[in-house]
């Protein structure tokens, strides 16, 4: 699966969970925490993205994901 498609899906879900966010602030180098996502928000972004991409990744795999780039990378490896 194309990395850009995965990133755009993550971005769309970040903006759905955090509707007040300026879209340009969601970048590969940023972290969900820096964007103001709390732990529940982060879990929502991950599960919604998996759903959109039709992926089933054990959620425990995400525990070492610290920024958006590593999230995209993990999803890409599972696709």
């Amino acid at each position, binding site marked *: 699966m194309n990395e850009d498609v995965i990133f755009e899906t993550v971005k769309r879900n970040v903006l759905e969970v955090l509707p007040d966010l300026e879209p340009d602030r969601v970048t590969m180098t940023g972290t969900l925490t820096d964007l103001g996502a*709390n*732990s*529940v928000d*982060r*879990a*929502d972004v991950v*599960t*919604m993205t998996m*759903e959109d991409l039709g992926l089933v990744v*054990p*959620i*425990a795999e*995400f*525990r070492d994901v610290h920024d958006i780039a590593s999230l995209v990378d993990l999803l890409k490896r599972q696709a």
Partner: protein
Amino acid sequence: MSAGIEALNVYCGLAQIPVRSLFEGRGLDLDRMGNLMMRNRSVGLPFEDPVTNAVNAAVPIVDRLDPAERDRVEILITSTESGLDYSKSVASYVHEYLGLPRSCRVVEVKQACYAATAAVQMAVAYVASGVSPGAKALVIATDVALVDERAQYAEPATGAGAAAVLVGEDPRVLDVDLGAFGNHSYETLDSARPSPSFDIADSDRSLFAYLDCLTNCFEDYRSRVEGADFATTFDYLAMHTPFAGMVKAAHRKLMREFTGTAPAEAEEDFTRRVLPSLAYPSAVGNLCSGSVYLALCSLIDHLGDAGGPQPDDRARVGLYSYGSGCSSEFFSGLVDRRSAEELAAMRIPDHLAGRCALTFEEYAGLLPANLRCLVPDQDRRIDVEAYEGILDRARIDRDLLVNTGTKDYHRTYEWLSYE
């Protein structure tokens, strides 16, 4: 054969602090308060410990048993992540101060916040097996909090107290669906208590494990219960509640996964099926081992409040218990009018409303002594009267057990008379 919960009660301490006061006192970001969905957290006092919490939760249940029934309490299990000794159980003290028969098995179990459910399920199986017809088992989940400012946003979410669950053949409170359960367990270090005086926690890892286990427990439940459906099989849900906002996220995830429901629709379902179970957890905080049973009390005392079935309708409840480390279970049972009547006799709303509201300064002043609660001092004296200023502001309507210290490592207790 019927088996399940005959009686249920909680004890959530004599004091509480409004969550807003705690946020302001610690300088936490008030924008994050909404996510917790919490109003107050119970705060233990320095003369309260896992034994007093357990006994004070169970006395109203034991007092309602006649002597013949009391003699049939054949198993006492305390479930705690606040153990007092590597060898001697909390249950050994609780057995004494509850006056339970000498012909009683006495044991303590541990698996973070999950252990009480393992104990309840083993007790239900014992009763249902028929090896000792008419037997009862008392399971008490009991804990104290060891959090201070180091816990950051977990501090306002952490409660203290106990839940007492009497299991027997006349399941007036929860008629457990025998054989309907699902489990999921694996090793992880999401939160733990490596010493008697502090906790460690990785909030992201814990949240993910909680959500992961819920999905997998429900999958396992479905594999055992033909036709089980997350959206329609259960009239209500009661879950382990680290903080109410997390239960909301968990419900949303399962609705999405198992029913394809969009978040807006899930919100309506949440209000009707889940919100009644969160009233007490929002006023107490995470009761740890007893958390799912506090949620069940909340649900039964609020049946029908948000559009769900009324007490006169028999309603099926799905319950989810999770304990860090980790082990978890999804199970179910039936509640009805008898459940509501049985629980009303415990007057939990009066108990929660009667707690003394602490100022942040009073709260901060209690913490150093509270953090020593589980430390095994050879000799220690706790001056209960030193806390009269707080006790006078709490509404106490029965005798309560208090911890007066230790003597040669033996914990000492007295009954505090309310008159």
